């Protein structure tokens, strides 16, 4: 049993690495394992029947009809020589016996395991309504194919439930195709959970400028079908009824951790807790040495953000964390690296490129340091306890690395650098207007989930079986 004696070298030569989750994080981790000289057996387990594919184009090019939903396969960095178990969900984990249980009953033994099971779209809360023809979600390639076919059929009106990033990108694609859209958002503005109310107000203007029927402070109370089981209309919390041929539920994501219930890992609705080296914690808050975590399903402490555990549903995080996890899987203790990636993401909607670095929801205040909100072209810097904690740009992405360095060096907030095109005295901070975190909203891309899993305030709640 190569890993039992803790010998990374033995594992590297002859071990069995099992990667559960065959999407971006799983693929990049597998490639990194091979890149770093892992010569053992590699098994890739994925619940979807498809080879690893890229998801960002699904809510953009694919919905616009420019790219087929099956045409977003991820480019490979190298050949893997792996055994692929696709269309096979992992259903359980036996930590003591080092075995992953599969849906078909088969068991796969591992020496070292990487958990990269990601998230899935949060389904509509009422099952019978979710089953109506015309009620859709968007997460997988198959979801995107279904939604693209729907849009090809020229629906008279689409209802988008939730104005986070996914919901807003779907809305944007519909409008670009000339399809009428109503958006129902529980919060006061689109993107408010991720970027706050000040920037959210600009997102709301974008919706209005593109002819979206945007309804904020509204929830959908029921979806109603006709006798044939087709969606007919939605009932809204303001008492009105809206006729729609399709409803896209864009209420964020659910982490795929149910299969780990009872395994003894610190896994729950907020993800699988791991250390900065991507090693999973068990329920006692003790780090394991042969189970690693990467991607959307991981939550790990970040030194730049007070060692708070962060869950990042970001494309770039999946890549960076997978690389660190794989490196650490084949490296002895002193050579292991921490995952210190600066959170970053992008979104294209209504012809605007929205980018972010850092953790905007930690910011209490923001300052517009370039451009202006009125032009919808700007860079906003977010502050937390007197330092720069995040930056968000609308069509100002080229300057983002500069703000990234401010975050990494804990530069003071409000920023004190000289600006050539601004009034003297520096930018004036204003409240960033994040909603009360106790109120649910949609589409935060960073979840702050407390400190160490062993801390008293954090309670382990096993997933409902």
């Amino acid at each position, binding site marked *: 049993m190569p890993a039992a004696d803790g010998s990374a070298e033995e594992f590297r030569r002859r071990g069995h690495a099992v990667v559960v989750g065959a999407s971006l994080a799983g693929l*990049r981790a597998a*490639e*990194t394992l091979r*890149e770093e000289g892992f010569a053992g057996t590699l098994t890739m387990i994925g619940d979807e029947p498809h080879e690893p594919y*890229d998801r*960002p*184009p699904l809510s*953009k*090019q694919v919905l*616009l009809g*420019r*790219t087929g939903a099956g*045409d*977003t*396969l991820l*480019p*490979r*960095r*190298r*050949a893997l020589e792996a055994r692929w178990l696709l269309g096979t969900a992992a259903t359980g984990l036996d930590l003591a016996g080092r075995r992953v249980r599969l849906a078909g009953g088969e068991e796969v033994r591992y020496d070292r395991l990487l958990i990269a099971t990601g998230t899935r779209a949060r389904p509509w809360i009422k099952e019978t309504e979710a089953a109506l023809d015309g009620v859709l979600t968007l997460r997988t390639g198959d979801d995107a194919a279904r939604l693209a076919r729907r849009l090809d059929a020229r629906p008279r009106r689409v209802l988008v439930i939730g104005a986070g990033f996914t919901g807003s990108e779907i809305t944007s694609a519909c409008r670009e195709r000339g399809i009428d859209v109503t958006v129902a958002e529980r919060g006061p503005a689109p993107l408010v959970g991720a970027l706050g109310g000040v920037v959210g107000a600009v997102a709301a203007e974008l919706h209005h400028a593109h002819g979206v029927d945007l309804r904020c402070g509204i929830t959908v109370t029921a979806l109603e079908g006709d006798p044939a089981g087709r969606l007919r209309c939605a009932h809204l919390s303001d008492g009105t009824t809206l006729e729609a041929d399709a409803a896209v539920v864009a209420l964020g994501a659910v982490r795929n951790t149910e299969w780990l219930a009872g395994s003894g890992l610190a896994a729950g609705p907020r993800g699988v807790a791991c250390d900065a080296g991507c090693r999973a914690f068990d329920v006692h808050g003790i780090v394991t040495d042969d189970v690693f975590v990467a991607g959307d399903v991981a939550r790990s402490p970040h030194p730049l953000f007070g060692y708070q555990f962060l869950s990042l549903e970001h*494309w*770039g995080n999946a*890549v*960076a964390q997978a*690389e660190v996890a794989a490196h650490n899987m084949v490296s002895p203790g002193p050579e292991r690296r921490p995952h210190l*990636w*600066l959170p*970053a*993401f*992008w979104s*294209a909607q*209504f*012809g*605007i*490129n929205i*980018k972010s670095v850092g953790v905007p929801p930690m910011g209490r205040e923001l300052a517009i340091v370039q451009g202006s909100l009125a032009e919808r072209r700007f860079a906003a810097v977010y502050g937390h306890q007197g330092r720069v904690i995040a930056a968000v740009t609308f*069509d*100002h*992405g*080229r300057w983002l*690395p500069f703000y*990234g360095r401010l975050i990494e060096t804990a530069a003071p907030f409000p920023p004190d650098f000289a600006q050539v095109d601004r009034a003297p005295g520096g930018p004036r901070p204003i409240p960033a207007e994040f909603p009360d975190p106790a109120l649910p909203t949609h589409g935060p891309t960073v979840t702050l989930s407390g400190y160490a899993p062993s801390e008293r305030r954090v309670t382990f709640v096993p997933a409902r079986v």
Partner: protein
Amino acid sequence: MDLNRCEAYAQCAFQAPDVFAMHGEEALMYEPCPGDERREQVMRAAASCPVQAILVEWPGGPAVPEGAATGARG
């Protein structure tokens, strides 16, 4: 495409206009799996990207543009 890296220099849209297009001033649209007849265009686009945001693989073996080979990402 690593659009975290992309800074909208639009070199790819000049080199491979059938594959890459600016959508607005800064957002980039691209064809994720362009046909083999676009190979030369795409390789030129990948080579000309100032921030090396384009990763290319063709059937018959992965090909990584120079500079992106380490996979180090900001």
